[in-house]
């Protein structure tokens, strides 16, 4: 044997060990929580063990969920966000007319002190992936305190002296849900899971390349074109880099 059983299952391949219920790859979002807590990072808002925080849909609980999400977003220690759901280039949520169920992009910029730029108390995020419609088309990178330029390399950060950060968003309206949102498009789910595996396992340490290779990964082939996703900021951001 070249390596021991312990090394094989812990150091070199920890995924099966931490994934006792296999839920990580059963759902589209839970893996982000499980991998973050494995780092370990604090995951907000409060959530069931190993599960991503879910916002109830068209339910009396919905407004409370949005409020919890809002508080987590503006918590001074929050630096990473993966969101999957309704949205657009102007905000996060399904109904822009209802502030209790929608977080406008302008509000994020004001709450995080990132817009206008140059504020000394700004709260910049390190990584944001908005898995919703046309999320790359608005001013979200500015709102989250990131550089609103595509595919930056080392040179920019060398001169700016900034910590790395990256924003990932769609240029299109991805087919995430089907049957009026009651089920998830399997190809989309597989793409996100492939990306999660590529990036967190270190197989592809760069976020851009983890996306580029998510079209066909361990969860199988998908019809998602990675080129429909834009990375603003540092294209080679690592999973736990500058965290």
């Amino acid at each position, binding site marked *: *044997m*070249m*390596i*021991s*059983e312990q*090394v*094989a*299952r812990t*150091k*070199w*391949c920890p*995924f*099966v*060990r931490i*994934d006792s219920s*296999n839920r*990580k*790859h*059963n759902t589209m979002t839970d893996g982000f929580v499980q991998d973050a807590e494995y780092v370990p990072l604090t995951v907000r808002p409060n959530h069931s063990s190993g599960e991503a925080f879910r916002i109830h849909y068209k339910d009396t609980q919905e407004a409370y969920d949005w409020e919890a999400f809002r508080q987590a977003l503006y918590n001074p220690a929050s630096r990473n966000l993966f969101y999957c759901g309704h949205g657009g280039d102007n905000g996060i949520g399904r109904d822009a007319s209802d502030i209790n169920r929608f977080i406008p992009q302008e509000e994020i910029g004001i709450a995080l002190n990132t817009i206008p730029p140059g504020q000394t108390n700004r709260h910049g995020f390190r990584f944001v992936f908005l898995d919703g419609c046309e999320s790359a088309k608005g001013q979200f990178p500015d709102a989250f305190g990131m550089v609103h330029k595509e*595919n930056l*390399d*080392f*040179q920019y*950060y*060398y001169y700016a*002296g*900034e*910590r790395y950060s990256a924003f990932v968003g769609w240029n299109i309206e991805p087919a995430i849900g089907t049957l009026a949102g009651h089920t998830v498009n399997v190809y989309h789910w597989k793409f996100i899971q492939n990306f999660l*595996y590529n990036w967190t*396992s*270190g*197989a*592809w*340490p760069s976020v851009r*390349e983890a996306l*580029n*290779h998510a*079209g*066909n*990964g*361990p*969860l199988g082939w998908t019809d998602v*074109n*990675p*080129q*429909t996703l834009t990375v603003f900021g540092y294209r*080679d951001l*690592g999973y736990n*880099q*500058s965290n």
Partner: protein
Amino acid sequence: MENLIHMTAAYSNAVLLLVLTNVCDFAKRLELPIAQPITINQVRECKPSPFKNYVAGALILTNGDQFTFDNGYIAGFYAYSNYCNPPQDWQPQDYYKATNWWGTMNMTTNEVVEFARDSLRKLSYDPKVLHADGPPTQFEGPPVLSGQIVPCCRVEWSSRDWPDIVSFCIDGQRTQVLRFSLASTNAYRPTPKLDVVPELESDYRKRVQGKMFMRTNAAPRLIRPKPSPQDHD
């Protein structure tokens, strides 16, 4: 997802050998500055994929170079610590170390592009099939850091109109590939069969739970006394 396997040293080592064989071939073809043949002693880490019927893995050598084996081919290569792959643990205050990357650019733009295409040919890929026969869709470099040239260029062929993504980082001083990434269904090769057949994690757990039950002091089966004939009418 029921296709997670139970990782064992035997399976991990089988993947390691498969990936290492491909890495040796890849490094030889691209004439990477790595002593050949690459041996197990040069492997710092191997991360096999834990999925059934998906043989893949990332290999990191002791010199820091990383290779990713995916869909039957080496899909990625990162040479350690260069402009295209700065160490991930660097903080902004460490960036002064990047002055070690200063050098002289000995290649023209066209030579860099042609070298990238030649590298594809050396790996037995037809640039035309990968949409890399035309002008690159992105060309960056060489960058200037603190007034000095870093002889490193990035070449990429990608588009929303086709599924292939080919990218290279080329060291224009030593004429070497620093980074390579190829995502294309045209590059897929059949995955060789491994001698070790992995067990599903779910099956392993059922088996282990069964064994734990067997280890108890309970009788192997309940022995009931035979009913006597008087018990029946």
